[in-house]
């Protein structure tokens, strides 16, 4: 079995004029199959930057990155797209749902991209939306859904992409406590059931207890890790 993520000395330096920001410094990380990991830290600590690099979206300034046994070379755009398509799915703080499409259609669109169409796709979309607790909101437009419900549609869509690794950046950032918690529970639950890896970047301390492991960042460095007992 391949290890989802191994990074060594992973770093990112932003330069703006004569200023440089060490957004991520020297991060060694290993993620195991089926782990749900929380990436915690104050605003500006480098969570988003790290997540973008793990998502093959942002080119690091240094270090090495292995994704499911593939040494990621950031110079090759086509290869990056291929890796993303095969291994990674995303959930964002802004839900990024097509406002003109219903929950069902938003999920169907991604299934179609994966080459799943017709009846099997419809079955799968209903399955996924039911799994996030939206069975009675399937044909609602995003504008008729609450923030939490929208984020759950986004989760269903991310799951539709059927990638083993899900990266989520502040998925509860636009949600109140109750809804945020509910979204995290749904995500955690599904990840466990479907044996997917999840990394959630957040500064929402109230949801700490959901994670198998928590990585604390500050000023671009990993300062502490905590594993759940058992």
């Amino acid at each position: 079995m391949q290890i989802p993520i191994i990074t060594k000395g992973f770093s990112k330096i932003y330069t703006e004029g004569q200023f440089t920001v060490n957004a991520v410094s020297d991060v060694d990380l290993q993620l195991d199959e089926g782990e749900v990991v929380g990436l915690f830290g104050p605003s500006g600590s480098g969570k988003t930057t790290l997540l973008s690099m793990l998502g093959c979206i942002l080119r690091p300034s240094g270090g090495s990155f292995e994704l499911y046994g593939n040494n990621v070379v950031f110079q090759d755009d086509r290869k990056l797209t291929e890796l993303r398509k095969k291994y990674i799915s995303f959930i964002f703080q802004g839900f990024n749902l097509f406002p003109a499409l219903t929950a069902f259609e938003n999920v169907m669109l991604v299934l179609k991209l994966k080459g799943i169409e017709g009846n099997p796709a419809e079955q799968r979309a209903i399955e996924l939306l039911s799994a996030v607790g939206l069975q009675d909101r399937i044909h609602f437009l995003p504008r008729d859904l609450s923030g939490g419900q929208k984020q759950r549609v986004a989760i269903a869509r991310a799951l539709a992409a059927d990638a083993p690794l899900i990266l989520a950046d502040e998925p509860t950032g636009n949600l109140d406590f109750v809804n945020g918690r509910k979204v995290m529970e749904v995500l955690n639950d599904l990840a466990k059931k479907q044996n997917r890896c999840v990394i959630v970047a957040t500064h929402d301390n109230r949801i700490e207890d959901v994670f198998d492991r928590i990585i604390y960042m500050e000023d671009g460095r990993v300062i502490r890790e905590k594993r759940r007992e058992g």
Partner: protein
Amino acid sequence: MFYVALRIILYDKVRSLITLLGVVFAVGLIFAQMGIFLGLMETSSVIVDHTPGDIWVTSKNSKNFDFSQPFPEYIYHQVTAEDGIQSAEKLIVAWGIIRQKEGGTEQVEIVGYNPDTGIGGPWDMVEGDPSLVKNGNFAIVDESAMKRLGDIQIGEYRDVLWHRLQIVGISRGVKSFTTAPIIFTSFNLAQSLVTYMGSDSTVFVVAKVSPGHSVPEVIKSLQKKLKGVDVYDKGSFSRKTRLYWTMETGVGFSFMLTILISFLIGMLIVGQTIYNSTMEHIKEFGTLKALGASNYEIYKIIFSQAMINALSGYLVSLLITIMSAKIYEAFGMVMVIKGWVNLLVLALTFIMCLSAAFISIRKVKRIDPAILFRG
């Protein structure tokens, strides 16, 4: 992806409606300009096109049907004597003056043809028959001339070039680019009416080639033998007349310019809408890309939007154009609506809308996924 595009368009109803109006405006203008332009073209060569015969002999350097110079009649005999000519007819087209009922005069175009064969004469009669102009001071006027000449009844008299002519028929569909009313008479009468021509001249000779002979070869041989005249096949002379009126007068250029401007306006409107829509959906598109969609799949959504804009705008314009053609007719203008024109405009509409989508395509290609991480 077409479905997604359709949903996006239907979702933003106000914007889509404005876009539709823009496309309809642009395409409708293109339709009208093309239709009127082609109508003018058809009008300018209508007699040539309706006159049976393969070959037109004209005076040297004649530029069009309406202003050709006379040449001696013996040319006609040379033509009939030519190997490969089955028959030939003389035709006079000249300018004259008609006296109005209530006084005053009006310029008319006189067409004198052989009433025995009817070649060069009217082809569609409201009343009377083309052969009636034979042997006497008789004339046929076109119904479209009545706007200029007042109501005309069969049997009444009008003075043309100071000769009293009796109206014996009313034709339909005969117009000239010059807008002057057209009066048909027999060849002989026209020859004596139009004194500046001389009594043994004609303006055209229209000839038919015998079966088994090739028109271009007969023309080549005639060109070699005949002096002081030009020899065309029917199509060429028709085209020459059309091109003269539409191009040399600048009318064509003005039509083309309007068509071009309409095209650009339409492109701008559609481009603007699709660009705005793309920018509004840029995060959604970016997310699709992050989830594994290729650029190509997102282009499909954008191009589908353009196609839907094009098709809906086109159909509405076509409908409006077909309905308004009747209005043009009421004003005495001909607006041509033909299969190939419709297809051409359809193609133009698609080119207009699809090229408008290209700026958006570039935007999608360069989506910076980092925007997705910004709340």
